[in-house]
């Protein structure tokens, strides 16, 4: 009778379950239905089959958007994890002024993505940003045109995002590091294991729950990235830094092309499910099963 085992907690969760079913599942169904119509400014039930999807996949802009989200997702996730973990390790060295550094590194996370975007927009602007300052100081060879270079602009976005997100990962990791038993450190030092080796091969695997948490939180941010790019590049130069979320928003609001927006959001949803489902299945189900055995 597993269904009725925790009747109290199920009742407590019921409102949440109802809300997610109606809001999330309901909206997904609604979006799917209207993605089959040729709705423009307002939703109409003029069904045109899968035309919107066909049109979507013919768009160069959509290809660019999809490519960007993979680049951004990869660089942002890896960058945050590596830098966040390194920062956590460094702070874990019982340094002086630890709380000060912790605050400094975490501060970017307290800002909204819009502020981050604007700050980096000014820093990276070639005509009055860092490049200009360096030129005025006499370093005329200095070049930093990432933001206006269509091949590099998406990496400029990644830098800004990592700058903001790394501190958060650091705090998660630091909490994990602080939870490591002193005895483990003692035995490692008795064994004479090099410090970096102990971190990489012993401590990091023990931080697995922290890493998983960090990845889940970061990944959720990757899919919906919108405000950062809007503030930093507005999707430009051209549409070199556009993302699927921007494509959807654009078609919803400025382009009065609802059908297309619904189709794009359904594709976004399907791809997220495709990527997350096998991993989540392994992480939350299979592993527990094996652990139980």
């Amino acid at each position: 009778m597993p269904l009725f085992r925790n009747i109290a907690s199920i009742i407590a969760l019921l409102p949440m379950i109802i809300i997610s079913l109606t809001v999330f599942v309901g909206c997904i169904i609604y979006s799917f239905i209207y993605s089959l119509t040729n709705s423009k400014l307002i939703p109409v039930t003029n069904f045109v089959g899968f035309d919107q999807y066909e049109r979507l996949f013919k768009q160069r802009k959509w290809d660019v958007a999809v490519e960007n989200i993979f680049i951004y997702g990869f660089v942002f996730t890896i960058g945050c994890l590596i830098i966040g973990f390194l920062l956590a390790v460094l702070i874990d060295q019982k340094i002086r002024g630890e709380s000060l550094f912790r605050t400094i590194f975490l501060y970017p996370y307290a800002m909204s993505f819009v502020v981050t975007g604007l700050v980096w927009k000014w820093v990276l602007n070639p005509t009055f940003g860092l490049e200009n300052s360096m030129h005025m100081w006499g370093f005329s060879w200095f070049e930093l045109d990432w933001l206006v270079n269509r091949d590099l602009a998406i990496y400029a976005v990644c830098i800004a995002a990592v700058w903001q997100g790394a501190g958060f990962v650091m705090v998660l990791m630091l909490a994990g590091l602080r939870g490591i038993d002193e005895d483990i450190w003692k035995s490692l030092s008795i064994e004479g294991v090099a410090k970096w080796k102990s971190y990489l091969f012993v401590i990091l695997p023990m931080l697995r729950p922290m890493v998983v948490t960090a990845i889940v939180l970061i990944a959720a941010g990757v899919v919906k990235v919108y405000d950062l790019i809007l503030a930093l590049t507005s999707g430009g130069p051209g549409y070199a830094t556009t993302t699927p979320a921007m494509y959807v928003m654009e078609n919803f609001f400025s382009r009065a092309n609802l059908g297309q927006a619904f189709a794009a959001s359904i594709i976004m949803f399907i791809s997220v499910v495709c990527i997350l489902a096998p991993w989540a299945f392994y992480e939350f189900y299979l592993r527990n099963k094996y652990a139980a055995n």
Partner: protein
Amino acid sequence: MKKFFSILLTLFLPLSFTNVSKAAGHMEAEVIHWWTSGGEQAAISQFAEAWQEMGNTWIDTAITGGDNARGTTVNRIIGGNPPTAAQFNISKQFVDLVEQGLLQSLEEVASAEGWRDFIYPPELIETCEFEGEFYCVPVNIHSWQWMWINNDVYKQVGLPVPQTFEEFLAGAPTIQDAGIIPLALGGQGWQESGMFDVVASSIMGFPLMQSIYRDKDVDAFRDGRFESVLNTFRELNTFTDEGSPGRLWNDTTAMVIEGKAAMQVMGDWARGEFAVAGKEAMVDYSCVIPGKEKYVALGGDVFVFPKNDDPKVKDVQLAMASMMVNPTVQAKFNNAKGSLPMRLDVDTSAADACMQMGLDLIQNPDAIMRESDDWNTPAFTSAWDDIISEFRNDPNYTVAQVMDDLEGVLTSGL
């Protein structure tokens, strides 16, 4: 404490009484618009003042950015809480609203006041008329067809002020050698596509534009002239600076004003920036309508009036529509806005040299040019503009490829 309340009472009692006493002829209207810059605020307040002088209340809902404002309007209409009036552009932006029967017909006041007789040019009537009834009020005309040129720059390098894009291109290397940016362009989609249409119309002429944008005539599109427009556009873009991507239009205009750049292609709203900077038309700067055949484009703004469940709102809406086309209000509004009025019998004595040029030109029906969004939905124009923007920004995007992609949009039925 007692004293405090009595003060409060004395403060508010008269207010409540005046409200009651005025209620009879009093009308309240909420207007959504996106006029938030200094000059734009001055313009919309002309409407607000005229409305208030009639003894009514004006609730101003200014939302930054046309996209956001239009999005809000549509959401509120669908959500059942429509504003009294809302701004759109002279375009097909609000066609869906008319077709779904969500807008108030203004035919009653339009035929009573004879709008069809005085609205000029008549193309504006076409924009607002659906099945013989008026659904919007055109309030002004803004044209994109301008080159804004810093005269000092050309004096400095010893060249005459260019009158066409060919002349501009011929002089551009000299300007570049003098350390000045020849072409100021803000790299935002709407600025790029706006400039593209000016280049297109000045090179291939309005009739061809019409057969492409309106009639979707693939043969006309493929007859070679559109390719030469693309080539010229690409050449022009080699004369911009690397700070261009994402730059706002007014920051870009400032570069021309300060002499850092020689020329910008921008709509006539740029004139306001020169005026604020204390520059004089034709002395400090030139406004040139490029090309041998000169056009004035019919861009601009309209107001629509969403249907309301409350039958009293209709009267308010008709009264406001009538106020907006009033010649006195039109004169005040357009002088503040720097745009051309939507009727000819308006006092335009305050117009400067550039505005006068537009006023003279618009009297000639052959010089009136329509824009792609007059005929096409936002879905079409944005798909088209994306390609133009990508063409400007990606040097590896060849003209042949662009032609194929544009033809794809042309035949997509969007």
